[in-house]
């Protein structure tokens, strides 16, 4: 419990720092923030109203609290270029990014687990060496190299899936899966490489430990030793890695969205950067920082459930 409180307080501090960063960022925007928020179409009257509403004539501390209140109630302001509310823009694009990240991670784990178990049970045999080379290859090729190759093969040559575009799952699940297949695979390959190599070496080491040998002396088969004895312990490092990977993953997802022209948060922020739409940049980046911090906190807390030894220490 103390452990969880400690982790949660770290999260709160991180969120606080992120909010300060967001607040300062907004005030670094050239010109009157009210104008920046309302966009070029704003009438002087509206600017004056918003200036008072934002409390721009109040002290910075008061302004910060107003900002916090607005941010956490979803009032991120309006996009400079289109005049749309930033909240609406984010609401329209976050599901797609989430789908890409979750889908790719599920895919990566589904491939990595059986492969690394097989490799670890017979280490340094052909299967192990072959899969090591393959995953190292996937790891070394960046998404912007892999994506065009996949598009060329599966979209252009075979025509199984579209090269770009996105249909939401609510419209057509089948089409949605087709649209998301290549982006998910592209993003999954890098994660697969990391997960399978970590899990493989973790399992190889665990199988050398006394408790695995003792389990063997009970007459348990090697696969059963892996699944019943080693998996829970190796999941600790796997969870750590996926936590550490999350920011890399988000960056990767943004790049892939752009390549496949998926209307996700990545495309949103890249377009915003191009059109200097500061409020969009600010809202998306602060939200991403907070999401990463939250995920890492959840990872830390999940430790306590995976490892009973940590539960006791705290």
């Amino acid at each position, binding site marked *: 419990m103390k452990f969880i409180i400690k982790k949660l307080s770290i999260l709160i501090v991180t969120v606080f720092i992120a909010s300060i960063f967001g607040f300062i960022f907004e005030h670094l925007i050239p010109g009157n923030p009210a104008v920046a928020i309302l966009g070029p179409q704003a009438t002087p009257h509206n600017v004056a109203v918003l200036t008072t509403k934002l409390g721009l004539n109040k002290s910075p501390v008061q302004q910060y609290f107003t900002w916090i209140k607005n941010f956490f109630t979803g009032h991120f302001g309006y996009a400079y270029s289109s005049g749309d509310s930033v909240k609406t823009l984010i609401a329209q694009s976050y599901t797609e990014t989430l789908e890409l990240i979750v889908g790719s991670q599920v895919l990566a784990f589904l491939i990595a687990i059986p492969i690394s178990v097989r490799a670890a049970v017979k280490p340094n045999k052909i299967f192990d060496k072959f899969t090591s080379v393959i995953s190292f290859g996937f790891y070394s090729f960046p998404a912007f190299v892999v994506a065009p190759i996949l598009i060329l093969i599966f979209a252009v040559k075979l025509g199984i899936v579209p090269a770009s575009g996105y249909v939401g799952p609510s419209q057509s699940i089948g089409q949605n899966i087709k649209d998301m297949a290549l982006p998910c695979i592209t993003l999954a390959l890098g994660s697969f490489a990391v997960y399978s190599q970590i899990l493989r070496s973790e399992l190889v080491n665990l199988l*050398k*430990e*006394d*408790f695995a*040998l*003792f*389990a*063997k*002396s*009970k*007459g*348990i*088969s090697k696969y059963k030793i892996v699944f*019943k*004895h080693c998996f*829970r*312990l190796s999941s600790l490092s796997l969870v750590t890695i996926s936590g550490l990977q999350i920011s890399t993953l988000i960056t990767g997802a943004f790049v892939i969205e752009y390549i496949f022209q998926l209307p996700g948060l990545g495309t949103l922020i890249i377009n915003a950067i191009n059109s200097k739409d500061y409020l969009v940049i600010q809202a998306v980046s602060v939200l991403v920082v907070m999401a990463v911090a939250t995920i890492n906190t959840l990872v830390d807390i999940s430790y306590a459930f*995976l*490892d*009973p*030894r940590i539960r*006791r220490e705290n």
Partner: protein
Amino acid sequence: MKKTSKQIEPNENALTVNNLSVSFKTERGLLKAVDSVSFTIPKGSVLGIVGESGSGKTVLCRTLIRLLPESNLNIEGSIDLFGINVTELRKRQLRQLYKNVASIIFQDPLTALNPVMKVKHQIAESLKLHTETSRSQRKQEVIDILELVGIPDPQIKANCYPHQLSGGQRQRVMIACAIASSPTLLIADEPTTALDTTIQLQILQLLKSLQKLNQMTLILVSHDLGVVNYICDYVAVMYAGKLVEFGKTSDVLDHPYMPYTKALLDCMPSLSKPKSHKLQSIPNSMPDPFSLPLGCRFAPRCTYVQSRCVIESPKLISDSSEANIHEYACFFPIKPIVSKVALTSQTDNENT
């Protein structure tokens, strides 16, 4: 199981090891951890294996049930365990051997038990493999076994993780895991080394009583000759991978022939004769397994050494003068009759 169970025949001997050698392929070359070891023990007896750290006790024990990973291993010779030819067993038959015939206890229960698995599951695992029972029955069996090995509040402790138990309790849990399959052979590799002295005795008494109760054959590795004297019927003394002395505990410990055994005894203040000088440990250390002496491996440290010992390697020979088997590998054994020879040889050595 069909194959292995058919191989079990009524036989007076529990274990016959013949010319057993175990080598590891290492980066520095071949490491022969066990070298041409042969011995036989009857059913239901307790064998103690003694020797300094690194003499090959663990490798020998684990090889007896083929527990070592065999990718870098070379096993020669034969192991006959209750009529089962252990060296010839295939993987599946080996698992049957573990499930029904042989169990092992390691030195450190903290590393041998799974840290993230509840005690009851670790014991049930052995039970489940051995017998086919219902869930509730198995639950009760786990509690019974915990009670048998002397765990207080077995209902509560069954739900604990290993780190929540004391060192002695953890070792009892490991013993529970090992005996859950009702083995006919139990190997205990230094089961008390990681424990406090007060708890050591309790664990040994537990092992001894379980051995009697289940009529198990017990192999106990220890570097404590007092322990061996206390519960073992037979003693095997190992030095640098070789079996250097073997026989009934009383014979070997009361009248050691091999100077190494005597030196080990001299390190034990409680057991050594009052007149013998009390050493804390034998001076110098065991030879590097990669550059073993040509002759007797103990020669560099032996106070009875003669020139023959340096060029020729002594074979394990039996003392024919006695009804009991008492074997030793030494050219100049310490016997009452030859003790004079031994003494002169010592002065010879000082001159050269």
